[in-house]
């Protein structure tokens, strides 16, 4: 591989790795929380349509 090939490879991999790790740190810092007045149990209920006819 030529030096320029190495440059393109390492730059691409490094940029993608750094941004991906930054994103996961942010996600780890702030997990989703249920909205006010919406208990976790309600979110765990089996799927159904909001206006289900059956």
């Amino acid at each position, binding site marked *: 591989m030529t030096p320029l090939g190495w440059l*393109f*490879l390492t730059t691409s991999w490094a940029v993608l790795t750094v*941004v991906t790790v930054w*994103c996961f740190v942010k*996600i780890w810092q702030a*997990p989703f929380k*249920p909205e006010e007045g919406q208990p976790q149990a309600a979110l765990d209920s089996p*799927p159904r*349509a909001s206006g289900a*006819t059956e």
Partner: protein
Amino acid sequence: MAHNSREAWKTRLGLVLAMAGNATGLGNYLRFPVQAAENGGGAFMIPYFCALIFLAIPLMWCEWAMGRLGGERGHGTAPGIFQLLWNHPVAKYLGALGILLPVAVGCYYVYVQSWTLAYTYFALFGTYVGVTSRAGMSEFLAGFQGRQSSWGVSALAYLCFVLTMAFNTWILSGGIRRGIERAASWGMPVLIGLSVLLTLRVLTLGAPDPWHPEHHVWNGMGFLWNPDLSRLTDAKVWLAAAGQIFFTLSVGFGTIQVYASYLRSRDDVVVTGLSTTMVNEWGEVVLGSTIAIPIAYAFFGPQGTVEVAQGGAFNLGFATMPVVLQQLPWHVAFGTAWFFLLFIAGTLSQLALMQPLITFLQDDLGWSHRRAVLVTSTVLFLAAHVPILGLQSGALDELDFWAGTFGVTLFALVETILFVWLFRPQRAWEEIHRGAQVRIPRLFLWVLTYVTPLYLLGLFAVWAIQYSPAVLAMEGVPPGDVPWRWGARLLLLVLLGFIGFAVHKAFRPGAKQGGDT
């Protein structure tokens, strides 16, 4: 008004994995390395990253924000979302494209997914062991597909298709949390783990042929990454990069909005959306590029690798890879790992393609989840017979062009105009930032308003003007293939008719819907 009875993602990580699973498909491992090798190697990454920053990431933020906005008001799919963005009778019918496209793509993608299931079995039980040439593996693939049989499909290929449909239906019957999120939470770590395993194996391969020490695997990496900067003046390279980034992130399919509609009103879309993009990109550029082309180089040399790249993605995945993996010690394990990771990637993408119709039937027609899943699976099962039985005659290619290339570009253009221009840029900007964990640089408001729509318009114009007339006129198509090609077009029209009628029924005055409009 929030619709609390709609499901919501259980964890932020689960959503990221599900959305990344939607984007990560066979293209990451098969299409990207072929595109890079054919379009300037490392130099391809310049237009690729330009398209990522100016086209894909802004479009992805738009789709996430649109989905969350619609979900809050009980509309998780494009017809209802477009109606919210633009209060015009035509808006909901434009949104019908956001249901048609995933169904049309899903009806042939499920067949390809079923091949990966079959090949996982073949690799595990050594069915193709002893077939050591690419021509031999191409014949093996054609025999498995039943291309020469009177029905155009073999019993085994059909059985695998039925099993795959049943498997997808079973996962979707669990809903967002217990179905899709759980599948992604298991599937994505396994997918990444298998990819890392294969990547490490390839990078430590050295030069497997002692008579050709120059066929070292790192020279194979050079084949992929050494930049040919002269190619940057070629417009086709920029178009190929934009096309690759567009398809790899699954923007313009109508699927991202649907997953995002299960967010809660203050959930962040900026970092979460960027995370899914980065997982997909990391999987494509770091892992996807390192497996297939470098290993092909190590066994076939530069000339053979050029032929492999020119043979296309399916040839690389199903004919070349089984041959080269057989040359390795532990070939059963590595072959199984390769096809199983493709099966996981295909499954998570296929689930996302089926979910829009399910969500539409639930939200806008008020159907139960069970009924919506069964009807969606039945529609896909029946529609899939056109690309399956017409595979030999190019029915799959016809659907792929009109739905998977032309349609998604058109849909992306329409949704961008609606969200940014008709909904107004400042409102779109504020909508994206509602609950945002970080602020996007203000420069992106300008990018979103002008650059992304113009980028899309350029892409659409090239495909519409340069390629569509030839495809429409069926130039170069053998006369015997013409009926199946028309059959594929008829299928698209029939699906569009049914979906358009359902949209009309769902949004007629006094219709019972899942949400308010």
